[in-house]
């Protein structure tokens, strides 16, 4: 049965994004939440985000500075998180 996994990206953003991409390898549903800060503009993070979009993964953020992600306020994210099987804060 497919599992639903939320990855909460906080610190070490590039590794968190790399892990998120790896988690889809067994066809689980993986959503990514970039929390509380702007995603660092590095070659790695840009590549990971681009790959996620190609894989139709959803990327949400509560930080309005993050472009190209769906903004959700804290309360909305808090409402969504319990719907996942695993919530992995990185």
């Amino acid at each position, binding site marked *: 049965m497919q*599992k639903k*996994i939320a990855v909460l990206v906080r610190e070490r953003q590039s*590794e968190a994004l790399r*892990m998120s*991409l790896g*988690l*889809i390898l067994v066809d689980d549903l993986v959503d990514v939440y970039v929390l509380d800060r702007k995603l660092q503009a590095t070659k790695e993070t840009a590549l990971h985000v681009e790959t996620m979009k190609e894989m139709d993964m959803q990327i949400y953020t509560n930080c309005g500075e993050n472009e190209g992600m769906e903004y959700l306020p804290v309360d909305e994210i808090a409402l969504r998180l319990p719907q996942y099987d*695993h919530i*992995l*804060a990185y």
Partner: protein
Amino acid sequence: MKLGMLINTAKHLGDVVGICRAALARNHQVSIFAMDEGTRLLENDAFVSLAELQGVSMSVCDHSAKMIGVRTEGLSPKIVCASQLNNAMMNHNADRVIVL
């Protein structure tokens, strides 16, 4: 029940060992995946010895180990040097996943 342990830091060795052993004592199965800074624990005997325990499976992100500069040569054959696929499998199969 199955407990997944995602180890991405090297800061919580005591908790990793304590929780793993407590879970085994409760007859749970434990799957450990180390990546990122967590691969530094491969240099710690208390950590790697968990792989020898009945009911524990341990795998490591080889890419992380190489990036961090942790040697994986000479590890117990029970520690699988692998990829993020192993983390995906752990998450897929685990009832709970703790990140440390």
